[in-house]
């Protein structure tokens, strides 16, 4: 059951972590500060919804081999920004490169193939597929995924066995091996998060982008999830993740980028970033918790609410 994992989730500084921290050591705390060895470089990405500018990122770089957290109040445009970078939504303007390769306008599946794989805020376990089938799906360049070769099992069976073996290793590491033949829909919320992360690893990515990996996970599982995220760096991957819980951000990230109202407003190491006045302003200055893109809806609802209240008052006065 227990794989001899390379690191204990709660180990102190490892070699990789030390390397990452060294890279960040002398960096300025300005938004868009250049990194020594960036894997992802973003320039002037803009996304508007009607009159609302959801994302307007001037410049940002992600250091290779590090764990970078992307934080910000609700409606700051973090998920929208993720969607732009991974090809799930088209940016109105801007360009970005991954490993020096321009990625703007590249469709989502090609982004993933290039080695930039994401997970979703609302977990997307493929419910009516088994856990093992979920895992196998992640493998790239499968011979059996072409229509005509699929009809001749002999052509793809060998590769399928290799994939299965790799999937079993990962499942063991993520403690899901016992569930391999269950439908993914039967897993608990936390297990689905684990499965989604493990599945993303089947792609063998270089950059893993996690959208709120801890959301909706019970506290017992968070430590193990944290461990897995740290593990990714130990295996040489770069991690960019969106998170709200500052304790976790402090625990696992090497560098933090803060977004507010669509723009990157500050960057810095996790232990000092929250004392940055720009960040405090952004968090306290945010008027309400609702996603900004739904202001209109809010207004409507407030109106309706106000009228309802008025009516209730009228009725109680009678």
């Amino acid at each position: 059951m227990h794989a001899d994992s390379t690191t204990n989730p709660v180990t102190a500084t490892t070699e990789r972590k030390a390397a990452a921290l060294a890279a960040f050591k002398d960096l300025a705390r300005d938004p868009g500060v250049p990194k020594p060895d960036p894997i992802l470089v973003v320039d002037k990405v803009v996304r508007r919804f009607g009159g609302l500018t959801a994302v307007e990122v001037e410049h940002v770089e992600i250091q290779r081999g590090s764990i970078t957290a992307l934080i910000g109040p609700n409606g700051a445009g973090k998920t929208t920004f993720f969607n732009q970078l991974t090809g799930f939504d088209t940016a109105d303007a801007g360009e970005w490169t991954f490993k020096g390769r321009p990625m703007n306008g590249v469709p989502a599946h090609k982004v993933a193939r290039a080695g930039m794989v994401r997970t979703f805020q609302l977990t997307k376990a493929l419910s009516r597929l088994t856990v093992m089938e979920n895992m196998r799906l992640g493998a790239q360049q499968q011979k059996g995924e072409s229509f005509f070769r699929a009809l001749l099992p002999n052509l793809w069976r060998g590769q399928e066995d290799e994939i299965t073996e790799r999937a079993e290793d990962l499942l063991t590491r993520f403690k899901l091996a016992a569930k391999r033949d269950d439908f993914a829909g039967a897993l608990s919320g936390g297990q689905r998060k684990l499965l989604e992360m493990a599945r993303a690893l089947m792609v063998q990515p270089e950059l893993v982008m996690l959208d709120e990996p801890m959301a909706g996970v019970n506290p017992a599982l968070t430590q193990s999830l944290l461990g897995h995220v740290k593990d990714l760096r130990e295996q040489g991957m770069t991690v960019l993740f969106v998170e709200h819980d500052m304790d976790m951000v402090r625990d696992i990230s090497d560098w933090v980028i803060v977004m507010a109202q669509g723009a990157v407003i500050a960057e810095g190491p996790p232990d000092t970033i929250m004392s940055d006045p720009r960040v405090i302003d952004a968090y306290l200055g945010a008027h309400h918790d609702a996603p900004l893109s739904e202001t209109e809806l809010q207004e409507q609802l407030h109106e309706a609410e106000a009228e309802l209240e008025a009516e209730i008052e009228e009725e109680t006065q009678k």
Partner: protein
Amino acid sequence: MDWVTIISTTVKAAVGVETVLYALAAIGINVHFGYTGLLNFGQAAFMAVAGYGLAVTVTVLGLPFWVGIGVGLLAAVLLAIILGIPTLRLRADYLAIVTIAAAEIIRLIFRSVAFKNVFGGSDGQRGFSDGFYALNPFPEGDYGFGWFTFNNRVTWVLFVGWILIALSCLIVYLLMKSPWGRVLKAIREDEDAVRALGKNVFSYKMQSLILGGVIGALGGFIYGLAFASVQPDIFGTETTFFAYTIVILGGAARVLGPVVGSMIFWVLLVLVNGILSGAVEAGYLPFMAPTQVGPVRFLLVGIGLILLLVYRPQGIFGDKREIAIDAR
């Protein structure tokens, strides 16, 4: 009431021409809807372009039978591509509306007076099946055993039809066991997740649309050949809806579901028809006119479809657990 005739026609319906052509249409829909989650409500159009492709090639252009089959299949593939490019990026409900609209466009064009000299207007086309019956290896006479006895023409149609069903099922079985089928099923669950794993979702949906459309097209051929004619109104939206009923009856995402579904659907329809007609003729149902028998059975199809989805959405072969997991 003539029970012998009623039961014998009912039993024969289990393997009859309707069962065959609707089974093929339903296997196609099962690929689209059952495995890929594509709500193609234009399956009748695939049958129509195939049937008309064959009919027009042979009668209007005067080309041989096999060329007509080729044209029909090509027409189905082309239709899938033309239909797929604008619609496969749409949400499921938009896709349903667009495919049903496209099918209506095709039907209206086939029946229009403007193209009467090509498609034959609302009368359709006939006289294109000689090439098919010339290949008939069964000499004049009746074939079969017991109640399953058909004349040589029908026997030939059924023989070819059931071979096509078997082949289609085999292909669907092999594909859905393979990594290709896994991608399809994953798209049915959540296409964004599949995209995030580096699969070209659009391409797979298109392949699925073409495969299911071509299998449906075989149903169109069988119709045209068995009745030696094609008419535009045969390929209306209700044909598609009946095929959906069959898929759900048999169990979506099950290889043999559509085939068994089609057999049960037609057995029930013919049985109800026989009993009702017999009862009306014998005067047991004084409140019903003979012409009301037809509507009553389709009314029952409607009720059946509702009850199935409410009480047994997994159909006959489906797995209750699979449905229960993801009710949304």
